[in-house]
């Protein structure tokens, strides 16, 4: 294991550990409003300062990290599995199956998903707890985010279907689900991994965008998305650099994921 991979693993463990320990590290919790110190810069009491209504930013970053770190990969996993199922099988089966699956995928791709999400949110009951709103947000992202990955997987599976080793396997009597499971799916893993890791930051940023449209995580619960909203209207980076901590954390976590898993994807580590 290279030093970069070890470092990435250590960083991820540290971030995950800190976020899971947020109940002990940030005793005030993410919702308490220190109104006399609203918008305060970092201090001994508030290591990353406070947000616009006086909530401890450090606590919100820790709790938000926990939510995003657990739920964005969950949504990415859901969307990747759906992509593998639809795209992988379509590519493997080919012919009319592939055409039908890709027609459905194109239909989903052509849907204005943002408006679809707005519509779904508008139809949802109003009195839902913040926790439910988090789960619903990431579930919707997972259910709607599989289409692009499905197209990539369909193309890759189609190539594999016509490859020599699959023909050989077929000639030696391996067929159906077994052929797909033993020979096709393992060779789709690099593409699946890539789609999975690409989806995580994409879903985190999507959640931030949805927050602006009122579809994101409900107050007072934090997420990286809602924390990134603090950067709205920041005229220069030097003004309040501590507000960039959630963004920095997002970059570090996503990069660490990429480094840690680069070997499995066949990329130089």
């Amino acid at each position, binding site marked *: 294991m290279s030093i970069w991979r070890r470092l990435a693993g250590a960083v991820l463990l540290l971030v995950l550990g800190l976020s899971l320990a947020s109940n002990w590290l940030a005793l005030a919790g993410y919702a308490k*409003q220190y109104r006399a110190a609203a918008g305060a810069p970092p201090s001994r009491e508030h290591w990353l300062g406070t947000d*616009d209504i006086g909530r401890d930013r450090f606590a919100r970053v820790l709790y938000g990290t926990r939510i995003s770190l657990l739920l964005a990969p969950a949504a990415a996993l859901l969307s990747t599995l759906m992509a593998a199922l639809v795209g992988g099988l379509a590519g493997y089966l080919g012919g009319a199956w592939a055409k039908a699956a890709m027609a459905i995928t194109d239909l989903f791709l052509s849907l204005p998903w943002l408006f679809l999400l707005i519509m779904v949110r*508008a139809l949802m009951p*109003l009195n839902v707890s913040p926790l439910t709103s988090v789960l619903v947000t990431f579930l919707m992202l997972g259910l709607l985010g599989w289409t692009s990955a499905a197209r990539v997987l369909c193309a890759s599976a189609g190539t594999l279907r016509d490859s020599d080793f699959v023909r050989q396997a077929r000639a030696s009597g391996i067929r159906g689900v077994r052929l797909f499971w033993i020979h096709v799916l393992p060779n789709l893993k690099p593409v699946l991994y890539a789609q999975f890791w690409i989806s995580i930051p994409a879903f985190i940023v999507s959640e931030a965008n949805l927050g602006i*449209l*009122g579809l994101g995580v409900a107050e007072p619960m934090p997420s990286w998305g809602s924390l990134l909203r603090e950067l709205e209207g920041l005229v220069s980076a030097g003004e309040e650099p501590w507000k960039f901590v959630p963004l920095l954390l997002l970059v570090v976590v996503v990069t660490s994921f990429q480094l840690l898993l680069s070997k499995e994807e066949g990329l130089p580590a």
Partner: protein
Amino acid sequence: MRNSRGKFMSVGIWKMVGRSLSVGLLASLAFAQGELRFCLRSEPKTFDPLKVEDDASVAIRYLTGGTLVRLNRQTQVLEPELAQSWNVSKDGREISFKLRGGLSFSDGTPFSAEDVGYTVQKLMDPALHSPTGDTFRSGPGNVAIKVISPTQVSITFPAPVAGLDRQFDQVAILSAHSPKKELAVLGAFMVADYKPGATVLLKRNPNYWKTDSQGHKLPYLDSISLDIQPNRDVEMLRFKRNEIDLINSLDSEYFDKLAAASPQVVHDAGPSLDSEFVWFNEVAKAPLPDYKKNWFRSANFRRAISDAINREDLAKVVFRGHAQPAMGPVSPANKFWFNDKLKPMVYSPDAAIKTLQGDGFRSENGTLKDKDGNAIVFSIITNSGNKYRERMATMIQEDLGKIGVKVNVVTLDFPSLLDRMTQTFDYEAILLGFTNPGLDPNEQMNVWLSSSENHQWNPQEKSPETAWEAEIDRLMRVQAASSIPGQRKEAFDRVQEIVVQQEPFIYLVNRNALSAVALDVHGASPVILVPQTYWNAERLSVR
């Protein structure tokens, strides 16, 4: 871009006037040139002053249109403009104007009473669908216009129009004879160029009739360049780079940032007319459980919720001190109509609990429950993307949590919010606000009359469902039918008292009117009324 500024005091003039001339004369000579630049936040939809509806077109109408009377944005008093004097009949149906003589439109066409008659006729033409004209439509029938002489005109409406003279502040007079139609204007500036999506350029009207106290022709400015820029962040950056001179309705965060860098450029004119408020759904047919309807229709419940909201904190934290806790439906900034007998709403969670206990509510393990054991949980919706309202809702959530009330904050896109508010009535509480309401209570008739569509807490009641709503209906009609200011004020004062007692709207704060004016703009004196910074555009100059 702005290198012409600073050249307008030529060396020759300096030599000519010498040191013996007064400072005042030097100043007025200095005002002879200059271009003012600021941003319009949307594309103007029309240059026809009678069709104006959107803010950008209103700004252009204000700068180019000549009106018979004009509301002084600083004193809030109506002043003569093209009309030297006017008289409103006792029944509020007829207004007669004595006009100034010898004036011309920007293209040289002479101005007379005939133009006033022509404008009013066009304004009241139902086919034109003029939003300005709609404010004069108080009853069925036609308007009678009598041109008595070139400087005298009388207009009679089929029914009394409340605040009739003030309504003419919005009516820019058109020429009946000019081939340039609505582009021939009587205001200080005229439209010289328009690049869609980019700029509207206004040039000085050479035939403008006003002069300053020293006899110099107004306006001082050569031109005004209005850049179409919907993005507030870009507007702020351009101001910081000295590319524009004014920002109206400045955000409190931006205000503080600008103040930190250059305190002289920012202006806090105090509380504006804008108000933010919450209301509960009191619609009988709303798809809500009956026990929730009972809470929301109880004045005691609404008062208790109001008592438990810390308005001082909302003003201090959300608006960084650039707002005032609201005292009622009218902002104290509305000098004439504000009822100064109203007392500030005091934050008192104890009083809230006491009121609720009186109605059978009780606290169980930190959760407030009604007499049937239902936990007090409701949602407050606000429009997504409005960070101030989102923050207020979150602070209210914490305030109400202290008395055991659980609030879910929901942000929705505006169309979905409107649909719930006006069509399905599927909501519990909404946090919204009024921006730029008019000074006169008649402009809020559609909110206070129980039969109105905009009577938000319970729209379109067939007959008033409560005694206090019936009383508000009566008082609003009394003030609308009267042309005696004292009588109208008395009635509207009582309306304000009833609203504060019953709290159909729980008023939160009045935002302050914040603006920024570059240091090289002279004569600016920002006010709370729109247009805050350039209300006296004819007397502004840029060095």
